[in-house]
């Protein structure tokens, strides 16, 4: 049933697919983390128009499926601007922008749990607002946000399965290519599913360990109160 796994060509496709999936997810969550942090800061400290713009951004990216956004990025945007852009770049961008929409919420939540008192404390010892943010609040916020970040990583990885439908050779794309030559539908999708499962479970486990190691001592008590 699973003999196709022994074929080196198919192995190559699966590995290539996994690499693309991993690459695009990691870039996506990292772009999302950077942009999401900026959006969260803007939402907390910004003036009304900035807040409204951020709310609109979040609503657009969280309100529609990444699947639609991917089609918009790959087909619609180049057609409107009438330029040729590499599909890969567009895909990286749309995953990052989408993830930023979600991560803004997580970062804002994390920052708000530590914000008020420590902002005052920082300023009372002579640091500026930006310095307090940079040296006091963000380092703690990043430690608090790790579990939500892991969730975001899982859901973004799952969304990368859409890439196959705009012509990329990701894991699902590899599965489809194998199926063209080999009609064993069930085993191929089982294998593809298990690869995703192994990667997502493994990565979340690592992130859980990092969270435990890096977490602020006594944070559970604080979060409960």
């Amino acid at each position, binding site marked *: 049933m699973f003999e196709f796994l022994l074929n080196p060509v198919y192995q190559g496709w699966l590995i290539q697919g996994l690499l693309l999936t991993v690459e695009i997810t990691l870039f996506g969550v990292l772009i999302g983390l950077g942009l999401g942090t900026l959006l969260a800061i803007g939402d907390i400290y910004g003036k009304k128009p900035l807040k409204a713009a951020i709310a609109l951004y979040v*609503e*657009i990216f*969280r*309100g*529609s*499926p*990444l*699947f*639609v*956004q991917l*089609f*918009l990025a790959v*087909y*619609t945007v180049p*057609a*409107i601007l009438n330029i040729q852009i590499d599909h890969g770049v567009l895909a990286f961008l749309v995953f990052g922008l989408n993830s930023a929409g979600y991560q803004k919420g997580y970062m804002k939540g994390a920052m708000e749990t530590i914000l008020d008192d420590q902002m005052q404390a920082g300023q009372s010892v002579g640091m500026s607002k930006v310095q307090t943010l940079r040296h006091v609040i963000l380092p703690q916020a990043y430690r608090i946000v790790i579990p939500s970040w892991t969730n975001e990583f*899982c859901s973004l*990885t*799952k*969304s*990368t*399965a*859409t890439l*196959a*439908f705009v012509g990329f050779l990701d*894991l*699902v794309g590899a*599965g489809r290519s194998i199926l063209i030559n080999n009609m064993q*539908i*069930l085993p*191929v*999708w*089982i294998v*593809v*599913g298990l690869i*995703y*499962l192994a990667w*997502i*479970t493994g990565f979340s486990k690592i992130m859980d360990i990092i969270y435990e190691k890096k977490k602020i001592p006594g944070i559970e008590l604080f979060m409960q109160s």
Partner: protein
Amino acid sequence: MDVWQQLIFIVEGVPLTLSISILSFLIGIALGLPLAFIRVYEKEVGFIVDAYEKIFRGIPEIVLLLLFYFGLGPFFPIPFGNAFFVAAFVLGLRSGANQSQIYRGAIRGVGDEQILAGTSIGLSKWRSIWHIMIPQVLNFSTPGLGSEYALLIKDSAYVYVIGLAELMTRAIQLKSIPPGDVVTPFVIAAALYVALTFPIAFWLDRWGNKRKKKLGL
């Protein structure tokens, strides 16, 4: 086709999008609530719930749809030969895994010692769960349920891969009709999705917070 015809063609997919999402939401409640209570109160079998959640959090919906519809469909035409059933089944099971976590958080928020109070006045464990915990848990989890509903609307776009003619599938169909308009169909689809997700999630969040205040949770 002009814009108006395209809009009508895509809007005709909205009932299917909604029925898939709502049906899988209900399946998710039916699975998620008991699983959350089993996870909290029956520690010995909790690992089964954990495994179920891990599997559905770790495998993309698209792969599951392809697996059940094209992989199992030929062997078990009833029920997996039916695309609508497969869609509701896969998204429902996925939602059950998510909702179980939402309810688990809510059980903790409501305070699981209320079960003790229930049993102390002579209710059985499961009766006190049914009469005391569930009404409060549902109220407590409305914000989470709002975003779960939005997630299901968005996930329903994946059923394109098994060929159900909902919103997303119709937009892609329009793209393949010559001359191949790649702008309007996707803009319309994105706008419709935002319109479907935003108001209800927003309203549920509002309503939930009000109820919570009223009940003093």
